[in-house]
């Protein structure tokens, strides 16, 4: 049991000791996950609003597919992205495999169905009423889109934070497409797996605590938003 307690103590020491390797890992994790989530948001939010407001042929089938993709295992996403980006794949010529860009693409693919599904659900419930109100007051096109996003900003922010949490905590996809290369593609989750297998528990625990801290921060923001609304 001592090694766990010692691990925690050394981990806390590591966090406050300005260890460059540790901070590089944290910075890359945040950069990759924030980028993947934000790029996905640009694509997912307008798409979800459009799909949520319109009635179209096979909407129910689409909804079921979307909900299925929301829970796709991250290793499967990693595998699919790797197949496309690997040297023999259709995008192999771009030489993105084992780069942070590949990790961002993987996280984009991973969180897009989740974010689209969450926003789609919200728009399906409240969006139509907002759209009708906007139309009755004369809003069209971009004014209408801005109105819907503004009215649903709390729910959309919650969807964004949920997607970011999924992105930063996943390990399978970034491990496959990033390769966990030191100083290049090593992020918190892949490091925890590696340091654990090496028996280097201090840094693994330190990174685990950091991950927990980020989750805590995300949850605080999320509940802060919920609280504001209530």
């Amino acid at each position, binding site marked *: 049991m001592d090694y766990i307690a010692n691990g925690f103590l050394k981990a806390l020491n590591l966090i406050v000791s300005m260890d460059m390797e540790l901070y590089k890992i944290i910075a890359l994790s945040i950069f990759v996950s924030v980028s993947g989530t934000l790029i996905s948001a640009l694509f997912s939010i307008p798409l979800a609003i459009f799909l949520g407001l319109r009635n179209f042929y096979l909407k129910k089938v689409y909804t079921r597919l979307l909900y299925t993709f929301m829970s796709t295992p991250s290793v499967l996403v990693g595998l699919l992205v790797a197949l496309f980006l690997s040297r023999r794949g259709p995008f192999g010529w771009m030489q993105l495999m084992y780069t942070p860009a590949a990790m961002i693409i993987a996280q984009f693919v991973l969180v897009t169905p989740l974010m689209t599904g969450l926003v789609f659900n919200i728009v399906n419930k409240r969006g139509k*009423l*907002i759209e*009708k*109100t906007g*139309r*009755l*007051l*004369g*809003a*069209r096109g971009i*004014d209408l889109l801005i*109105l819907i996003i503004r*009215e649903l900003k709390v729910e959309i922010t919650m969807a964004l934070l949920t997607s970011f949490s999924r992105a930063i905590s996943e390990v399978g996809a970034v491990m496959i497409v990033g390769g966990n290369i030191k100083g290049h593609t090593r992020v918190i989750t892949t490091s925890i797996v590696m340091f654990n297998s090496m028996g280097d528990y201090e840094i693994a625990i330190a990174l685990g605590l950091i991950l927990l801290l980020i989750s805590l921060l995300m949850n605080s923001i999320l509940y802060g938003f919920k609280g504001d609304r209530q």
Partner: protein
Amino acid sequence: MNIRLKNLEKKFYKKPVLNIENLEFTKGLTCIMGSNGSGKSTLLNIISGNLNYENGQVLYNDKPFTKDIYSSMTLVEQKPYMLSRSVYDNVAYPLRIRRYTNREVHTKVEEILQNLQITELKKNRGDELSGGEIQKVALARALVFSPKLLMLDESTSNMDKKSLENVERIIRNYAQMGNTVLFVTHDLNQAKSLTENIVNLQEV
């Protein structure tokens, strides 16, 4: 604005809910009455362009639905949706999307809030008002951009007597200014006190 309905037919899940052979609404105030399910709200939703219909024609000044017509009419429902911002910003919204200047917005909003006697509510959040207050703010939000066609679907049902008298006076004046006002109500006395033009919709 004149509204002419010709052979208008609307069905919900194959069940007919509205069947109007010929009906015309001219400038001024018209009250629409009818029992529950007679299609009053459906009719207003069709005229406002929010609902499609199976057969027939809806003509606005003898022309079909266009963008210009769309931006010069509005419908206030019984339970209007309030935007999650202040009452002032709710009322200012239709003017802002029509690109009015800040000074114009301020003048018009203050004026309409004063007319409807809700100036004291202007800093309150739109989604934290009572039923009657919501109806007054929704009416202010509709009147602020001076639509040629104003449709009110039981929009005064939650108001107290004093507010109701004031609102009815405003609606009458608005209709006398050459605008078309369609007012759906269940209250025959209210309809009679407002206008002589009363249309009674029959259940299909």
